């Protein structure tokens, strides 16, 4: 089926360079029943959305399911997308809400287990553990609240502006600044991994 979709209307797909320059064109093409246009949107953004959701869930399967739900919601509501704004920000907003609903239905943020249980530490696990010890984000997840972590991720990992972060997180810009400041202070307090 996917192959069939891929073979349809190939000539109407804009070139990747051109599409990169104008993402709104891609969205309009998807709205005009061009199946490959939405595939291109998925190809461009699925990895970032998956990564973002993996930071929330710490579980590959959950992150994958939530990524699918995010893009499904995006497909169903594509007509509501404001082409004046970056598509990835809209997808982050949907992904965040989907993840929050997931946590509301399943587990709390603090109770989410890590994806890699290590009862008998193998060399690979030991290496992974040492990586995690050096990983600032793993440390941040331990000491920050969910909201602080989420805002910090959007600001530094996704490199979004204060305003964009505020819009995605549903907060004011001032609130985002305060959360980022607090999160940075906590990370700089000396509890950081040496």
């Amino acid at each position, binding site marked *: 089926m996917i192959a069939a979709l891929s073979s349809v209307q190939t000539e109407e797909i804009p070139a990747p360079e051109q599409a990169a320059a104008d993402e709104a064109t891609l969205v309009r093409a998807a709205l005009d029943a061009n*199946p490959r246009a939405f595939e291109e949107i998925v190809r461009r953004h*699925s990895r970032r959305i998956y990564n973002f959701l993996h930071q929330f869930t710490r579980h590959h399967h959950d992150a994958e399911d939530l*990524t699918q739900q995010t893009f499904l919601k995006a497909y169903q509501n594509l007509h509501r997308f404001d082409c004046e704004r970056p598509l990835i920000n809209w997808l982050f907003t949907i992904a965040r809400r989907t993840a929050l609903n997931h946590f509301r239905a399943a587990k709390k943020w603090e109770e989410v287990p890590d994806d890699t249980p290590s009862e008998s530490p193998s060399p690979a696990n030991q290496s992974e553990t040492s990586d995690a010890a050096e990983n*600032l984000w793993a440390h941040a997840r331990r000491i920050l609240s969910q909201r602080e972590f989420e805002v910090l991720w959007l600001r530094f990992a996704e490199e979004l502006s204060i305003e964009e972060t505020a819009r995605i997180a549903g907060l004011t810009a001032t609130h985002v600044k305060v959360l980022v400041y607090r999160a940075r202070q906590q990370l700089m307090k000396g509890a950081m991994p040496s």
Partner: protein
Amino acid sequence: MNPNLNPNRSPSAPVRLYCRLVRTFSAAGPMSRHAETCADCRRYFQASAQLGAALRRDAVRFAPPPPAGLERGIMQAIQAAMPSSEMARPRSRPASTHAGWWAGISVAVAAVMALAVGLMHPPTSNPAQPNPSAGISVAENPAATTPTEESTVERLWNTFVPPAQKIATAEPLQDELDAVYSDTRFAIDFLALNFLPAEALHAQPAASGLGRG
């Protein structure tokens, strides 16, 4: 190597912003000049910048590899959730709300104009037409005995809701015949006025009619 300059390693000692001057005001403008000379501020901003760089670096370095077939799974999930007809075309952009507003405004304007025309030209009884209420008794037609001026509200009401008496006494066939007769007479008069010589027009003034009225 100075640990403060190593982006891979965070400062071992806790770093705090001790300087109240910079904590109180923004770090822009004169404050940035102050930070150039204040060791505490320099240390704080340096550590803050290092933390930001380390966060960006670790986000890329420790990003989990996406599962194989993630994109295919997403497209399959969309196909499974949407009927094939909707899969071909996502929900289209709804009609602009402005169109609805314009339609509503147009209807309102048309209604107001119709109302105004109705009030300016109230329906008058045609003297040529027989009075349909002539055969109704006084008891049935009290308005006939007390011919008073209709108020605006009554006229408006009667325009949209004809009274039961009118409905009961209406003769649609007769009305239609009268209308046809009137139109025919008007057409013959028009033709006679434009195409007959003036002498003939004055000689046979009655020829323009149909022998009625």
